[in-house]
């Protein structure tokens, strides 16, 4: 029983990571109509910025390093929006725009390789350890992931529902023309969305540092699985992204009890293909 509970917590923790990636995909998709295929590189960039620069090079305490990473990535997101996402979203065909985001991802990867080097490294002691609740032992990093992701998810929901900027983002995501005629500055709004999305990526990058080594491929699979979570939950639908992520994380972990764990990635993508074939609208998309 303890093993099942431990697996469930691990599955939920990974599911929340996928959910955050899916949310990030979703808000960029809603704001710009673009599939951002460079977002896993934003995660990579955030992780390197945090671990490589702020903690290892500058020796900042982790909490300060987290804040610095968030601020840096927010600014990076804003600049990316004005230089890349806003012009790309105005292109007549989405194909060019999608290719543009793929190229942006390549540029970020090569920049990371040039700045921090190709060799992997890790942060000793960061979010390491475990908690014992009764007879169940839970990894500290998984608990932190669940808490932080829950906080971000709830904050985002409140932000979109109750704040002026959040409401404006919802309007822009549904109809840019109508939003602009209600007095919303669409370009600024898209920039803020990309900024927030970059912050989410940075937080994901920081949270997975204790799970993976900091290396150039650390975020590739997370990015793909986040996309799968979005599709499973219902693309463009925020609660759907959360549900899809958690479902994927839990199925993946419990699936690895039945099939060899090296195939657990296949399980996620088989689930993605099943949804694409049988219910392409996802679990929650067509509810209204």
């Amino acid at each position, binding site marked *: 029983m303890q093993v099942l509970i431990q697996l469930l917590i691990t599955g939920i923790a990974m599911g929340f990571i996928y959910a955050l990636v899916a949310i990030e995909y979703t808000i960029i998709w809603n704001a710009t109509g673009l599939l951002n295929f460079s977002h896993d590189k934003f995660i990579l960039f955030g992780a390197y910025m945090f671990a490589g620069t702020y903690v290892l090079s500058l020796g900042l305490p982790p909490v300060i390093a987290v804040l610095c990473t968030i601020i840096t990535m927010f600014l990076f997101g804003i600049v990316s929006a004005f230089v890349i996402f806003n012009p790309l979203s105005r292109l007549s065909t989405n194909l060019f725009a999608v290719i543009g985001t793929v190229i942006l991802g390549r540029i970020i990867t090569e920049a990371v390789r040039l700045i921090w080097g190709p060799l992997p490294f890790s942060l000793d002691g960061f979010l390491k350890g475990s908690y014992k609740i009764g007879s169940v032992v839970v990894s500290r990093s998984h608990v932190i992931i669940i808490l932080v992701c829950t906080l971000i998810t709830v904050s985002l929901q409140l932000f979109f529902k*109750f704040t002026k900027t959040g409401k404006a983002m919802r309007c822009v995501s549904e109809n840019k023309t109508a939003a602009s005629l209600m007095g919303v500055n669409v370009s600024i709004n898209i920039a803020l969305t990309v900024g927030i999305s970059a912050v989410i990526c940075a937080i994901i990058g920081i949270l997975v540092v204790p799970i993976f080594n900091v290396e150039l491929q650390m975020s590739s699979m997370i990015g793909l699985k986040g996309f799968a979570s979005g599709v499973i939950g219902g693309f463009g639908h925020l609660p759907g992204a959360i549900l899809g992520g958690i479902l994927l994380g839990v199925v993946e972990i419990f699936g690895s009890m039945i099939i060899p764990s090296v195939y657990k990635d296949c399980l996620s993508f088989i689930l993605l293909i099943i949804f694409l074939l049988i219910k392409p609208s996802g679990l929650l998309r067509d509810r209204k």
Partner: protein
Amino acid sequence: MENNKESKTILELKNVTKRFAGLVAVKDLSLKMKERTIHSLIGPNGAGKSTVINMITGLLPLTDGEIYHRDTKISGMKAYQIAQTRCSRTFQNLKLYRSMTVKENIMTGMMMDMHQGFLPFMFDFKKARQEDKAMNEKADLILKFIGLQELSNEYPANMPYGKQKLTELARSLMLEPSLLFLDEPAAGLNPSERVEFVDIIMKVFESGIDIFLIEHNMDVIMNISDDITVINFGSKIAEGTPEQIQEDPLVIEAYLGDRYKKEHGKGGRKCLK
């Protein structure tokens, strides 16, 4: 309302031209709309009417010319900046937010007057709730004014087309406009919906909002307009009161036809019922 020759100009187009590559959609168009009037822009399909309204509201840049709302030059401004001068509009093809209820749609019209930031929301929840309450009350008033209070929690896709058009009108009223642009409000409505819509337009006008109207339905145009501008192939061919327009030989030839004149009497504001 009779035209008041002394009234101020609320909207002025000066030699406005719009070219799309080699096509001249609007050519050297000038017009003045007087305060406290309903001013209509009519013309055959493809005459350039929607292009004119899109240029005024900032959705299309002008190739040449200038546009003024009262004393403010609005040509060259972005759409959101023009909205901030209290101009709002509806669309021929509805642009409602499909995932939001009628009331949520309407409340987005108050976006400019909101102050709820994220931090104030987190740390001054009481104030945020007060603002939310004020928005709700204002939306309820507009819903009642338009007659949509029964449908406030309905999603647009579940409502008849006429009610969707009213929702869009209600949303534009939340902006507290001084000048409202209506792009073919009666298009796609059945006769009873049309009568209902015209009554509401008159109520809106009587509440103090000036209206610039594009419409194909001549019954609507001739009965509620104070002034009419007629364009054809992007150029102005006539302007005046409904009576003058119905007598204008160029308009009859290009748009109304002889039959219209025979079947309909003189215009002037009267109830469609």
